[in-house]
């Protein structure tokens, strides 16, 4: 009697161990599978053809699809609610995704963080510098590009293309990343044209097509002959500039088809560098890095091929400046004052210096106000 009792207990124990082992094996198997054939799940907050933020990612995903052994599943227009959590989970459960790319700011907390805890075998990467190495799961991570470097190149080319020395900038919100782009356009333009100025109008939100058109028109009326912007979808701004017969510089993705006459160049993310790197790491059985940021020096940003309004001198200067940035030549050469006369940048800072991430001012030469 007691013997059978023990054997039953042993049996249960063994089964439990076996099950635990099987679970572990499934984890290992998924990883092994991931090494051979990787499914990448991508979620976008808007449409993939928005000529802006989402398109920049979609273009890179298209390049990622060409990588042998990589399968991509995509979902667009996923709101920043539990819908994104369920979409990502569905990619893991139904499509066997081993890497999830969450491309909108509001996806991170709580959705990416919670799912990363729930699925420790899946790698999650999010497109904003939010990952905290002390608090957040090790299979989550962040990637981001310093687009201000490409805006600096816009400025270099625009400084030589402008005839009125006035560049107009339509901006969404006065937060650090936007302000850095505005200031970089100014510094780029000043590097080739000491008389260049930038005039900025803030619309107050990321996507306000009507106000963006009004702002672009107002800047042209104020005498700007080059228009650029930092809003989610630059389509309206670039189209308005083209309609008004002035030049333009793009933002986020290529706006070349929108401005066949007026485009000089544009600031674009080059997410495929990052995405292909992740895929290669996973194929090699390595964990992809948790935190990636950078600009031209690591090939995370690029400029749109020169448009019809880029003069030969502008092209030459821009190409030279790109080589400079690749060699980590600093953009913010101090000391620099803000447009109220206060000294804000005391010395020369490296392009990725965290000091610059806290920017809350417009430099002298930019007309407009952050408040």
């Amino acid at each position, binding site marked *: 009697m007691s013997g059978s009792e023990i054997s039953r207990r042993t049996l249960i124990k063994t089964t439990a161990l076996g099950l635990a082992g099987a679970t572990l094996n499934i984890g290992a198997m998924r990883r092994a599978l991931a090494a051979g054939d990787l499914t990448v799940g991508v979620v976008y907050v808007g449409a993939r053809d928005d000529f802006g933020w989402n398109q920049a990612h979609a273009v890179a995903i298209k390049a990622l699809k060409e990588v042998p052994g990589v399968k991509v599943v*995509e979902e667009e227009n996923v*709101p920043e609610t539990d*819908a994104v959590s369920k979409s990502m*989970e*569905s990619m893991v459960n*139904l*499509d066997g995704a081993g890497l999830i790319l969450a491309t909108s*700011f509001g996806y991170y907390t*709580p959705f990416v963080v919670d799912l990363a805890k729930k699925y420790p075998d899946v790698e999650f990467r999010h497109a904003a510098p939010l990952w905290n190495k002390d608090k957040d799961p090790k299979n989550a991570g962040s990637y981001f590009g310093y687009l201000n470097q490409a805006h600096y190149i816009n400025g270099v080319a625009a400084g030589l293309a402008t005839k009125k020395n006035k560049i107009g900038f339509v901006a969404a919100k006065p937060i650090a990343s936007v302000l850095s782009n505005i200031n970089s356009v100014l510094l780029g333009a000043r590097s080739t044209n000491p008389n260049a100025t930038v005039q900025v109008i803030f619309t107050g939100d990321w996507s306000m097509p009507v106000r963006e058109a009004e702002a672009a028109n107002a800047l042209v009326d104020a005498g700007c002959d080059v228009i650029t912007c930092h809003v989610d979808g630059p389509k309206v701004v670039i189209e308005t500039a083209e309609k008004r017969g002035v030049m333009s510089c793009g933002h986020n993705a290529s706006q070349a088809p929108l401005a066949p006459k007026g485009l000089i160049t544009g600031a674009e993310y080059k997410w495929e560098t990052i995405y292909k790197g992740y895929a290669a790491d996973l194929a090699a059985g390595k964990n992809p890095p948790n935190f990636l940021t950078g600009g031209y020096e690591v090939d995370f940003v690029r400029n749109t091929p020169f448009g019809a309004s880029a003069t030969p001198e502008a092209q030459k200067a821009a190409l030279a400046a790109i080589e400079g940035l690749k060699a980590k030549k600093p953009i913010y050469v101090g000391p620099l004052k803000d447009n109220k006369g206060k000294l804000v940048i005391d010395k020369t800072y490296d392009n990725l210096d965290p000091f610059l991430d806290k920017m809350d001012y417009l430099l002298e030469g930019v007309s407009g106000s952050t408040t």
Partner: protein
Amino acid sequence: MSDAPATPSSASDLIQPVGPKAARSDLALRLRANSEYVAIPLLAIAIASALFAVFLIAIGKSPLDFVSYVWRGGFGTAFSFQNTLQRSAPLILTALAVAIPARIGLIMIGGEGALVLGGFAAAALAIPMIGVLPPIVALVLMAIFAMLTGGFWVGIAGFLRYARGVNETISSLLLTYIGIAIMNFFVEGALRDLSNPNKPSTKPLGDAYMVGKIPGTDVHWGFAAGILLCILIYLLLERTTFGFAARVTGGNYRAALAQGLPVGKLIVAFSGIAGACAGLAGFFEVAAIQGRANASLAAGYGFTGILVSFLARHNPLVIPPVAILFGGIVAAGGLVQRRMELPDATVQVLEGFIFVVLLTSETLYGRFSIFKPTASKDRT
């Protein structure tokens, strides 16, 4: 419905309704008449699906693939079905916010505003309570406050209707935009959590102060609350004098006034209950999902709820299955996008077909003699 008791053999059964046989016949008649409300919507959904199949074929995709992906993505696996249930949870509550005023003859479409403000009120009330009160007390207070806020908001539209004759459909819709603006004002200003620089939100509740999942599932408690409320509201509407008075008012406003019913109080009370349901949905969005109030609260659940309520013919007991159907279509929409490489708008086309055909099918009621009592057939 096929195994319903036999229909009365002759009209005399109706004239002399005595004894158990008569009771059975009465039930049979009601089943026969009510089966119309099941058969016609099912027919409408079938026609909408056929139209959608034509649409899919026209763009070169297989309707069979679509059906199999909807099944797999919305219902076919344990994960998918829970995904569906979770997505239906806010829709059940916001549909109630439309169905309840409909009983008293009001078309209120302000559920979105009540949801947003209710969620915001819950998150704002939580700020001083975190770490002070035990989570269960704090959560109950938050839920009550969310319901009061939502109820007050839609109650305004009800009051304006009664006291000033303002069209409640328009006023409740406009109040939605005011509600969202109020939330944004505080979330981007006084109540903003400064540690979250790029997406304005209130302070996070923290894991301890979150509503958990229903044990054994991945679905939050908002779903259970929605089902429970549907049953309670059904009982309130159909089994109490309060509900009866509301139905009289909805049926004939002047007659209700002539009867001495407190029409004004009824209208404000029903609007308030409706808003409370949407406010509760907002509470669950904050306390079960987002963990904070921000612009993501305005995700359109209030507007989808209008659709759900109309499809359910404003019947609280029909709302859950319709909401689950919608939740399933949305949950499957992702898989359809991923596997068939169709744009996200595809499922909206399907929803549009269903809505249009169902509304059109309203004209079919009373036109099929098969659903009519035998008695009336005898008379013709």
